[in-house]
């Protein structure tokens, strides 16, 4: 442990072995190409094939509209489409927020004692076995024709993976770390907030990512059953009037919303908990 040994070890752990030179540059471009250009290229190819097939085989609009037509019609109705997008986004975020508010304490409760876990766990699983589409009309009668049933359905669809992720994370803390904090006379609260929750962060974010993706699904289910706005409502009314390009446009926007929200959760994780992403492989 004498200090003359430290530099040799520091060489191992410091990223000093950066390569340079033309060969490496080309290699890097190739890697970036693989990561970015390939998927984008494949996507453009798919759109092209789609567009060409629609033209060549004269596929009727009500079966499959061409991508350009979808874009044109969606753009033509943009103020309307935008309003519906915002309505759905609000439902998604409210449902997602409700999922977090309820899942966190529920996850703590589930892991706090065997008694609580035995009592609550079957109930939570039960909420998952109920088909949410079947539940939605009932919720409308119970909660009224407003935002509440939609948010409730969104919550019911989204919260389950989050609770499971939180509970799994809290329970997967190595016994070593628990012993460590106990050997310094930590209280149960200290153990929860200083050891268990930080350790569970990568798990919690996996749950959050699953939850945000499902929240979009839940919001649309809610809108199908009861709504006068939102992208789900737009799809229903458009198809009722055979405005297929607009329905497809709404679908594309839903996908984009899902992807953007999912990535946002990932970015929040990387910004607030940079160690979490590097731990993820070890943690899961």
């Amino acid at each position: 442990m004498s200090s003359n040994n430290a530099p040799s070890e520091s060489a191992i752990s410091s990223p000093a072995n950066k390569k340079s030179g033309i060969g490496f540059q080309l290699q890097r471009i190739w890697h970036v190409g693989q990561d970015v250009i390939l998927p984008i290229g494949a996507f453009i190819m798919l759109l092209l094939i789609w567009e060409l097939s629609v033209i060549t085989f004269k596929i009727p609009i009500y079966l499959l509209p061409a991508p350009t037509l979808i874009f044109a019609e969606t753009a033509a109705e943009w103020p309307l489409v935008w309003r519906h997008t915002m309505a759905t986004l609000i439902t998604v975020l409210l449902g997602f927020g409700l999922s977090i508010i309820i899942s966190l304490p529920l996850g703590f409760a589930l892991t706090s004692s065997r008694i609580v876990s035995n009592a609550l766990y079957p109930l939570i699983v039960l909420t998952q076995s109920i088909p949410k589409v079947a539940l939605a009309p009932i919720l409308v009668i119970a909660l009224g024709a407003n935002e509440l049933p939609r948010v409730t359905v969104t919550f019911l669809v989204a919260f389950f993976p989050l609770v499971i992720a939180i509970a799994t994370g809290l329970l997967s803390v190595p016994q070593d770390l628990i012993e460590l904090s106990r050997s310094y006379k930590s209280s149960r609260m200290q153990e929860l907030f200083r050891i268990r929750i930080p350790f569970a962060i990568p798990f919690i974010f996996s749950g959050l990512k699953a939850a945000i993706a499902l929240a979009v699904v839940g919001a649309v289910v809610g809108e199908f059953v009861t709504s006068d706005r939102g992208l789900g409502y737009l799809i229903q009314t458009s198809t009722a009037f055979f405005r297929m390009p607009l329905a497809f446009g709404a679908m594309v926007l839903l996908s984009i919303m899902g992807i953007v929200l999912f990535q946002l959760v990932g970015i929040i994780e990387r910004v607030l908990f940079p160690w979490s992403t590097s731990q993820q492989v070890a943690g899961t």
Partner: protein
Amino acid sequence: MTAIEISNVSKVFQSWDGDAVAALENINLDIPENQFISLVGPSGCGKSTLLRLLGGLITPTDGNMRIAGSPVDGPREEIGFVFQKATLLPWKTLLDNVLFPLSIMKQMKPDSEQVARNLLALAGLEGFEEKHPDELSGGMQQRAALCRALVHDPDILLMDEPFGALDALTREEMSLELLRIWTEKPKTIVFVTHSITEAVLMSDRVVVMSPRPGRIQEIIDIPIPRPRTFEVEALNEFQQCAQRVRYLITGK
């Protein structure tokens, strides 16, 4: 003065299927202040269990233990624990990891950070204070864990195979380093190890334990003068002590 008194201590674990497993049976051991003592023995002889009992992490089924004259009824502030794994918190920097005991025990003082920095420097980790554990090698992580155990200046250091996960070279280096720290700041050290040479090299006394149920087989005094380096391995006394320990463990 006696730092640790263990009298008639037994520990029985209840397994899942209801069977009782006797991990320790009738352990008697007194450890004087500032003595370096090693617990050796085959797997399952209860040496880690004994350490956890001393640390107050588990309670004995029978018998009693005193530390500095008062009964052990839970973890205590005058103890520092070093585990086999470094058990550093991955979300904290090295400095914050070392300060963790103080912050848990709410003993942070204005000069605490300087104390932690000095310890890290002593352990050859200067310049790594703001790094996270996953950026360090296993040996460096274990040194940081040692710093963490020392940060509140405990009178007693309980070490559970602290160098077991390290490679042979780092391991030798760490044992000498521990001896040096112990000479500078004398403490009572209870050191669990699988390595006979490590035990003989470092200890004032080696406690050999036997398994099923865990018992103390023999306590061997190591009469080798200090300071010790690896050169003492060539001494006759060293060979005799190591032979005796090996004979007790393997029967050969």
